């Protein structure tokens, strides 16, 4: 039987946030004149995209019981690099190489020295942010034209942001559901969540390598989100990624992924990210006072996560 609530599913509990997204969308469609317009819906897709991309990367790490708090700094770092005075063909590959290096350090320290991911990635968050602020103390510089064009353009009325989304989701779908790597992620994460950390290794899986690669992939997804944001703000900015790490973890949790690992889904994460974007967009359109927006966001998030009761206690 199709487990709509997902209480027993390895795919996590994604139906609840989807329901919330539909309800918020319906309320806004009837309550405001602007929500259901094509202009606003495309705005929504564009506004959600950096979080969608980052959250997908974050989910890979969460599936193996980890967390990556450095993604926000990687995003800021990426925009700072892209705003350097160098050709695009140098800068664009460079940001992914550097991000992969940051992810490798995270994964290596977590798997080899068994340091808690929060400590490791918090350390890299500070290091990367510090380097970013040395590179670019304040916002400025110019991002390569090709990056701006790749983000701000549209094709037959469909903004490029939507195409970015489709491409990233397709890539992640292949990685998670069509490649052996995805199967290993779920298996290793399931073992970690149930306290049997050696289980996957006993079955011959290379758990350390798989976990390390999850951190590398997570950083690369963050770099991709950074490229997208650099195209949006048309400059480098040392603070643009601040708090994205928390939003990405929230989106992952909201999408039904268990923070202890082993349970979660791509579609749940995408829905989680869109719920957050929908809340921000919806409260703007509904003219909710800025003094109460943050509280409203917190209440809705707690309600959604609270309604996702699990058969087994998990984070």
């Amino acid at each position, binding site marked *: 039987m199709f487990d709509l609530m997902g209480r027993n599913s390895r795919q996590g509990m994604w139906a609840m946030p989807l329901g919330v997204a539909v309800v918020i969308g319906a309320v806004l469609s009837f309550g405001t004149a*602007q929500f259901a*317009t094509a*202009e*606003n819906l495309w*705005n929504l897709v*564009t*506004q959600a995209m*950096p979080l969608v991309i980052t959250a997908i990367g974050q989910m890979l790490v969460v599936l193996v019981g980890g967390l990556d708090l450095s993604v926000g700094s990687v995003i800021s770092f990426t925009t700072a690099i892209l705003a350097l005075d160098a050709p695009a063909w140098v800068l664009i590959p460079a940001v992914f190489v550097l991000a992969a290096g940051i992810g490798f350090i995270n994964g290596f320290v977590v798997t080899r020295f068994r340091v808690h991911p929060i400590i490791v990635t918090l350390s890299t968050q500070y290091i990367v942010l510090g380097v970013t*602020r040395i590179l670019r*103390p*304040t*916002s*400025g*510089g110019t991002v390569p034209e090709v990056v701006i064009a790749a983000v*701000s353009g549209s094709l037959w009325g469909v903004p490029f942001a939507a195409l970015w989304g489709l491409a990233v989701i397709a890539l992640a779908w292949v990685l998670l559901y069509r490649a052996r790597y995805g199967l290993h992620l779920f298996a290793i994460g399931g073992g970690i969540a149930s306290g049997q950390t050696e289980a996957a290794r006993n079955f011959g899986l290379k758990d350390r390598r798989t976990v390390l690669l999850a951190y590398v992939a997570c950083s690369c997804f963050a770099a991709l989100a950074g490229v997208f*944001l650099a195209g*949006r*703000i*048309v*400059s480098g*900015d*040392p*603070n*643009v990624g*601040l*708090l994205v790490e928390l939003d990405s973890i929230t989106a992952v949790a909201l999408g039904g992924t268990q923070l202890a690992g082993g349970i979660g889904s791509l579609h749940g994460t995408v829905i989680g990210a869109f719920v957050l974007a929908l809340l*921000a*967009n919806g409260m*703007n*359109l509904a*003219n909710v*006072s*800025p*003094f109460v*927006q*943050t509280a409203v966001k917190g209440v809705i998030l707690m309600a959604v996560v609270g309604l996702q009761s699990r058969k087994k206690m998990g984070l």
Partner: protein
Amino acid sequence: MLTRRLFCGLAALTTTTILAGRAFAVPSLVLMDGVTPNPDNTTVIEAGKFKKDGPWVIGMSHFGVNANTWTVQVSHEADFAASKEPRIAKFITLDAGFDQKKQVADIEDLIAQKVDAIIVMPVSSTSANASIEKAVAAGIPVVLHTGRIDSDAFTVEIQGGAEHFGKVMGDWLVKKVGNDGKIWVLRGLAGHPEDTNRYNGLMQAIEGTNIQIVAEEHGDWQYDKAKSLCETLFVSNPEVDGIWSSGADMTRACVDVFKSFGTAIPPISGEGNNGYFGQWLADGFDSISSEYSPAQGAAGVRAAIALLEGQELYHSYGYHPEGWDKDKAAKFYRADLSANVWWPSELSEELLQKLYAK
């Protein structure tokens, strides 16, 4: 030949007179006390360009409403100014929370709502540029204040001049500590353009002197963080001739630290905050207050109204007031109000009592 020269001369004189007359005719509108046309940019927004019949919907993208008491008051000042204008049907404030990407999204949301004018307090000097250009392309006038951007796309700007703010404090401190003084520098939020520009003002003031910055820290304009910083600085390096503080809450914190150690308070800069004024008047330390009124929020609303009324405005206005001495601070200080009020304010007495009564 002579006739032709005379004719050309008369034509040139007439043209000059018309242009000069046009330039002098524009700035009749006073956006705020101390706000004057920018002499380096006399571009004029022609009359009627954005004229629209009311009722109007005006949106404001605030860089961070809840950052501190000053940013909250800017929002109140804007709301109050909008509430006094019956042709404004709705005044929408969106809070970017110092998040550049949220500000981009907020401005897009205001454009989608088809507001009649947008007021932007930019989070950073570049991140909102593309959205502002998008708004102007959609025919929506954009008023910019309390932060510069690296673009000329806005319709009207009112710039407080953070360098001026920092330089007023710096010039005063140079006089106080002398050519060879040792100073601490308490900065605001790292990476924020207001912090960088105020600091640049200090650098301009001490250029050519032998003044030594013996400590430079970011207190994020917050009382608690600055208090910890000043405690540490005092213990490690108490020999200081003066303190350049980028914000009043940090000044209050540092003064409290010196008082707690029972030491004389060195000359220290401040700004127009009621709590700081109270402390200054009570303790009598040597200080100067740079002016940076939260009523810029109201000035932004007035500029938006003027554009929608079809008035001629300058493209760029400056706000470069003199520093305040203790006597001027005493005239504004209100013992019956809390430390959270900033001066000068345009809020009504009723609102001041409602929001800030002790």
